[in-house]
């Protein structure tokens, strides 16, 4: 993916805004921001963002490519849609944040061990291999993502919750052995393979400097 990153740097050398407009979902909206700040002020997780959305938009225009794409900020978005509801210019801010996050991941620039990013990957691995989400395995993978020792600590801390979930049949320990799948697992696999081909072609096109 760093090859793609290199290709993008060369292609959009002087304009990160243009790069965002072309490659990021809903990225063409970024230039419409009038810097009023209502999105940042309305975000329930706002105080935890390194750069609130309004600042991200200005950084994109100011060509701060690395600072934006390597930032953990857009990974904080929980899709509450407060910003979209209030934005006076109607920018789909939530979608832009997700677009930026997935673009930075595609380029291999997403911050390492960012919990939202890790969760996304674990979720994807589960659903892509079985066509269904295996909640038990996702839970375990998330708890053990920072190593075995930390994982045991996490699991111990959550054990009451786990027991309660099993008691109320919200979690099935047998899921650990394979787990349930969808009806046409190979069909899902073929579909994802095709999607990957389309995506690879897309990336190859950029790599060729088109």
């Amino acid at each position, binding site marked *: 993916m760093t090859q793609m990153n290199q290709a993008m740097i060369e292609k959009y050398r002087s304009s990160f805004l243009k790069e965002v407009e072309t490659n990021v979902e809903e990225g063409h909206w970024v230039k419409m921001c009038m810097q*009023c*700040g*209502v999105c940042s*002020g309305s975000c329930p997780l*706002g105080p935890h963002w390194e750069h*609130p959305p309004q*600042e991200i938009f200005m950084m994109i225009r100011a060509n701060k490519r690395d600072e934006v794409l390597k930032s953990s900020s857009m990974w904080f978005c929980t899709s509450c849609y407060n910003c979209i509801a209030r934005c*006076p210019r109607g920018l789909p801010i939530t979608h832009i944040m997700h677009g930026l996050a997935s673009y930075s991941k595609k380029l291999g620039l997403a911050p390492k061990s960012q919990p939202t990013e890790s969760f996304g990957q674990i979720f994807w691995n589960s659903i892509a291999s079985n066509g269904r989400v295996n909640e038990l395995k996702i839970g375990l993978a998330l708890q053990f993502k920072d190593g075995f020792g930390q994982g045991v600590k996490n699991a111990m801390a959550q054990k009451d919750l786990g027991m309660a979930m099993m008691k109320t049949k919200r979690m099935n320990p047998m899921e650990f052995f394979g787990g349930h799948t969808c009806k046409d697992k190979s069909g899902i696999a073929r579909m994802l393979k095709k999607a990957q081909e389309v995506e690879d072609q897309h990336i190859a096109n950029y790599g060729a400097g088109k």
Partner: protein
Amino acid sequence: MSEVIATNQTILVVGGGISGLTAALEAAECGKQVILLEKSPTVGGRVAQLYKYFPKLCFPTCGLEIQYRRLKANKNIRLLTLAEVTQVTGSEGDYDVTVALSPRYVTENCTACGDCEKAVAAEFDDEHNYGLKQRKGAYLPSMMAYPQRYVIDPRIIGTADAEAAKGACKAGAVDLDMQAQSLNLKVGAIIWATGWTPYDAAKIQPYGYDRFANVITNVEFERMLDPFGPTGGKIVRPSDGQAPSNIAFIQCAGSRDRNHLLHCSRICCMATLKQTNYVRENLGDAAKSTVYYIDIRAIDRIDDFHRKVKADANVSFTKSKVANIAENKANGNLVLHGVDTEGYNRYANEHDLVVLAVGMESTVPAGVFPEGFKINEHNFIELDPANGAIYGAGCSSDALDVNRAAQNATASALRAIQVINRVAGQEG
């Protein structure tokens, strides 16, 4: 009521605010026959509700008085108050207009002595003061009302109050049997100048205008300054009547916003700058003003005003659209939350009074005009050949300040005059 004479060489002006008055006067002083309609019992419109206007900070009574004198002196204008247009059909030079006339219950014999007002007990929200004050069921709409004639509120008709008003009138001017009427006018050109209404601040949910006593609008703030207004000319917090010491002005409250009014209302920046001046005049160094803004749109000569306000140590500017307001229940203060654009600093600032600079909402009605009539996405009347000889004037054509509204109205009068000249030419 004496008969209203209208022909297809008559210009109809709808709305008796500063734009309608100006358009009617300009046309009439050029010798054209004009009928001027006003929905409320008095002309003067929004301007009559202002304390002062910018940038010279003179009193509107002065500007209006000049117009009233011209109106009184001109035989070519027929003024009808309590008159509302319900339907317009026809085309250039040949319009049929249906007008609904509401009864005033007071005839031209009224001497404005005020005896009926004293005799009546029932009270209602005073429209002139945006409901911040009560008025009697028999009332003079404002000190500057023109015509200077009392009105009887239709809500007291049939009660003992109405009879008391009639009994108190020495001039025999109260006529409780007055009925609503419908008029059909034939006119050649129409100038539509029904102006604006302040945007309903309660719709801006995060600002809590409907929930917090000390969040008010700029038009209400304006009324506070009037010596005859709801607070006798004092700036006070509605919750406890105390003088505020730390006032926030929030710009673009409902303007430039897809969820509210899409257009820039143009006047609110200057209105706020002007109101910071009121704060300085009334409360001196005892009160600070903070203006929260996206950008201040003060152009040409009003930029000087902006610079002067910026030099005032008691006025500060925060470049940020406030995200939401919470109330401090202990003292009724308001906590403004947001992130500023100059440094992206998150703030939670406490103020003891918040003034929302609400925008202008056009009052151009739907379902009145002929088919195909062009009204733009902001509900302003377009200058478009499809509209024939119906011209928007003042704030029916765009969000304008008083100065520009008067210029715009004069332009619309010129357009209407040309239509009448064409009609007259054809008729020989």
